[in-house]
């Protein structure tokens, strides 16, 4: 696959249009690609909020619960392809739609985003139509048909007649837009291009790009490129990707991906016994998430650096809550500040952060199994079998003979019925036992020094830092990150036939020295993102 090719400018012709991607290194030919059928994704809760932020301006009051998101193939982004809207969800979306409509119409600045004409006091079909011509395509990510516009103008007009006010009437048309499946879902069907191949149409592609790179809707410029169809050309799509990555909203997009991959939403419901963990506080979960996300933003956008550094670096961002827990000086009086952790300490990178250490622990203790499992499954994409039923899973209490977790879980590793799985999880977790169930450093457990040594697939480690380095340089780490981003971008687990393409993207990431921006661009411009199979 790594055949000699003209360097730097490579023509990728693989059963699709000629996608010209400039890469700063020699690269093998893109494998032949067979497109997968389209899927329709439901907006996640965050995407729903981001969409309204972008349509009407930030700061709207939106209910804290809508339809719950569900994690599939490791990601909410994939769950969005199988979840629907329940009866309760319908109620919640209805209520949220009217709440939002009311807020938008009551605020002169937000109201301006609906359109420019000044409506009559009561029913005004012409102005309603103008407003729908502006907000309709932005909300539905496609132009409205004449029938749809007439229907919505009718709803606004009838409501204005009844309620005696144009604004009150239009709120019903707005609520209809916001409850529609065209708003709540991202339907994809595809269109046959000039070359006879089925591809996402320009609006679908604009929507794919914006939710992938921004976790939000297409902006005005993307909508123009969708409306005139130019987005389907290689030059325009490449230019749009560059523009989008340079936009601040790409930070929002990166945060969404990192939070999804690393399960950071679960920090909202971090359960810890405060009588055991004195550094537990109500806002700790949110602080921990922000630390991880700020580190990722800085590495990916400020530095465009090697993403593996996130596992090993001493540079990070802390607020006072985290600084106290980590026992280091707070870099800022309020909010977060950038800081560098001391070289002598054992805390480095993501595996030394509360967002991993506390989340992958129990409410009153650490869990060597959960921590090891997370590293295997989430960071290395290695499959572990589910535990068999019928096992006695009790582990002995701590005692004089069994002072630390290493002695207590020894049973998992000696009993053959447990060892099969636990020997690939627990020894990794034991390397992190210097961090308690919340993430605070400790040298001893029950007055006994903690032994953090072990090995990861043949790579010996002496402590948590060395373990983090072993994960970062593990052969599976880059391909795993790539696979996760591919799934995140496409909303589904890769098909078997796509594996060569996924591998090709992984090779690209490696050649590009693990710069995530490269991979985002590579996937967004690649065939799986732009070509689609027939509806099944």
């Amino acid at each position: 696959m790594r055949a000699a090719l003209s360097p730097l400018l490579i023509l990728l012709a693989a059963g699709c249009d000629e996608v010209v991607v400039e890469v700063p290194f020699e690269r093998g030919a893109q494998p032949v690609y067979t497109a997968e059928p389209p899927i329709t994704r439901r907006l996640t809760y965050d995407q729903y909020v981001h969409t309204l932020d972008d349509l009407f301006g930030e700061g709207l009051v939106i209910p804290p619960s809508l339809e719950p998101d569900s994690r599939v193939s490791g990601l909410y982004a994939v769950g969005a392809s199988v979840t629907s809207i329940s009866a309760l969800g319908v109620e919640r979306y209805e209520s949220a739609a009217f709440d939002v409509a009311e807020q938008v119409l009551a605020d002169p600045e937000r109201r301006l985003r609906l359109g420019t004409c000044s409506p009559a006091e009561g029913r005004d079909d012409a102005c309603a139509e103008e407003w729908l011509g502006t907000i309709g395509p932005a909300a539905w990510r496609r132009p409205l048909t004449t029938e749809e516009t007439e229907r919505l103008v009718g709803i606004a007009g009838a409501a204005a007649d009844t309620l005696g006010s144009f604004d009150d009437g239009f709120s019903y048309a707005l609520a209809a837009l916001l409850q529609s499946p065209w708003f709540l879902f991202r339907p994809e069907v595809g269109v046959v291009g000039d070359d006879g191949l089925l591809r996402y149409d320009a609006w679908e592609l604009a929507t794919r790009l914006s939710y992938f790179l921004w976790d939000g809707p297409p902006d005005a410029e993307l909508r123009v490129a969708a409306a005139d169809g130019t987005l389907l050309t290689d030059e325009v799509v490449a230019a749009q990707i560059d523009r989008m990555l340079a936009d601040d909203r790409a930070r929002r997009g990166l945060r969404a991906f990192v939070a999804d991959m690393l399960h950071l939403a679960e920090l909202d419901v971090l359960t810890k016994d405060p009588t055991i963990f004195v550094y537990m506080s109500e806002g700790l979960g949110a602080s921990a998430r922000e630390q991880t996300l700020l580190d990722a933003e800085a590495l990916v956008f400020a530095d465009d650096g090697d993403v593996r550094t996130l596992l090993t670096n001493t540079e990070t961002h802390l607020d006072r809550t985290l600084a106290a827990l980590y026992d280091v000086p707070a870099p800022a009086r309020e909010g977060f500040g950038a800081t560098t952790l001391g070289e002598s300490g054992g805390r480095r990178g993501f595996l030394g952060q509360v967002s991993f250490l506390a989340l992958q622990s129990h409410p009153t203790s650490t869990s060597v199994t959960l921590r090891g499992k997370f590293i295997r499954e989430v960071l290395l994409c290695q499959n572990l079998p589910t535990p068999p039923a019928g096992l006695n899973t009790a582990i002995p209490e701590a005692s004089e003979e069994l002072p630390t977790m290493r002695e207590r879980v020894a049973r998992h590793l000696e009993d053959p019925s447990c060892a099969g799985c636990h020997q690939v999880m627990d020894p990794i977790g034991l390397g992190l036992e210097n961090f308690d169930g919340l993430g605070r450093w400790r040298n001893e457990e029950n007055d006994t020094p903690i032994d953090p040594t072990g090995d990861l697939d043949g790579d010996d480690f002496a402590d948590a830092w060395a373990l983090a380095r072993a994960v970062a340089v593990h052969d599976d780490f880059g391909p795993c990150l790539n696979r996760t981003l591919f799934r995140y971008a496409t909303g589904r687990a890769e098909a078997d036939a796509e594996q060569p393409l996924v591998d090709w993207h992984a090779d690209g990431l490696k050649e590009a020295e693990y710069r995530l921006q490269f991979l985002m661009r590579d996937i967004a411009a690649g065939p799986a993102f732009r070509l689609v199979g027939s509806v099944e």
Partner: protein
Amino acid sequence: MSPFRTSSPRGVGPRSPKRSDGRGAAPSRRGFLRGVLQGSAIFVGLPMLEAMLNGNGTALACGGAIPKRFGLFFWGNGNVPSRWVPATDGADYTLSEQLAPLLAMQHKLAVVSGLSVKVPNLLPHTSGAGGLLSGMAPLSSDGNETFAGPTIDQVIAAEVGGDSLYPSIQTAASDSNGQSYNGPNSQNPPETDPYTLYERLFGASFREPGEEALVDPTLGLRRSVLDSVSTDILTLQARLGAADRARLDQHLTGVRDLETRLARLEEDPPSLEACSRPATEPLAEYPDVAGRPQITARSRVMIDMLAMAFACDQTRVFGHYICDPVSNNLFPGTSSGHHNLTHDEGGDQPEVNAITIQIVTELAYLLERFDAVAEADGTLLDNCCILGCSEVSLGQTHSLDDMPIVLAGGLCGTLRTGLHYRSYTGDNASSLMLSILRGMDILAPSFGSDDAYTEAGLSGIEV
């Protein structure tokens, strides 16, 4: 277009009763009204209806104007079987340590022990939950676990739910996804916030019996919006593949349910003697206390609302979840998370035992609360079937044998109470579900599939 439609072009309106009722029950309240008046826009006052149906109260018996209702009381992570199963069976038995909180209600419930969930136990906790409640082995692909078919509450709701305001109500006393499915990947999430639940059930649109129907021009306008949404769903469905069409079917069902509900708000509230607003409004928030969620307080205020939701005929089916399978709540007085304890605690698991007793105490609260509501010539509880269960027995081994089950209320005398029924042959738990369906007058030929399939009810608990 008129904002005040009385019927939608797509036939969205009150659903006709689907009950396949072999017992000659009276037609449903609303179906009856419509039948009598043949679609006239004038709605008859409820006293007249009562006069027609009710001479001295006995005509209001179960299955007639007083509907049969079903409630699921579920908790995750199982029990400690050695401290759950009563020592003797039959009518004359003594409640066990874990069941002791049910003493006051012992005559109105059956403890059912010894049943097995027959699906292969491949997915810890999920096999038990899906196997018990849907009778089918759950599906799993690439980390996505989902039930393969509808759960018992939704099977019932599909038959009896159309006559009430909500087909079913789902509530949870802790952070929970619930255990209610319409089919694969089609879950009915519970309401976890008591105040939001109150707003939905007893908020501005609620009318007590005798009060005037809601007069609100926005109800019609909201329905016209929902009608537009339905049109969008149908247009979109035509363009999509089979799997996505099925997902939008669920969306459409929800939209039509809401449309129907809004239409019914314009009718006079049913004249039901026991119906009133719950005496206590829930608090705005139930913050954790010392890191421990207020499960008891939340559960009880929700149960107060569910009792009135039944008494006011807002719904005829509920699912109430204390906690989910695998949930790791810190219960008061315990040293670790619930799920951790079930696996890590040795011996006869004193802490798991204490948690189980606390959960059974909440079940007892539910039964006593429902039994305190007088209805017809008995109590609300008498006209219900309340199924209390978990997805495993011993959590430590994810055992699907000797499942913990309490069946309460008797369902208008169709299910036996006042006994400990024990199966000594590991009978199929699906047979219990089939008995419940039949008690609800739903003519189901079978329940479950494959190893969990049955055509036979559990005769030992049927009257």
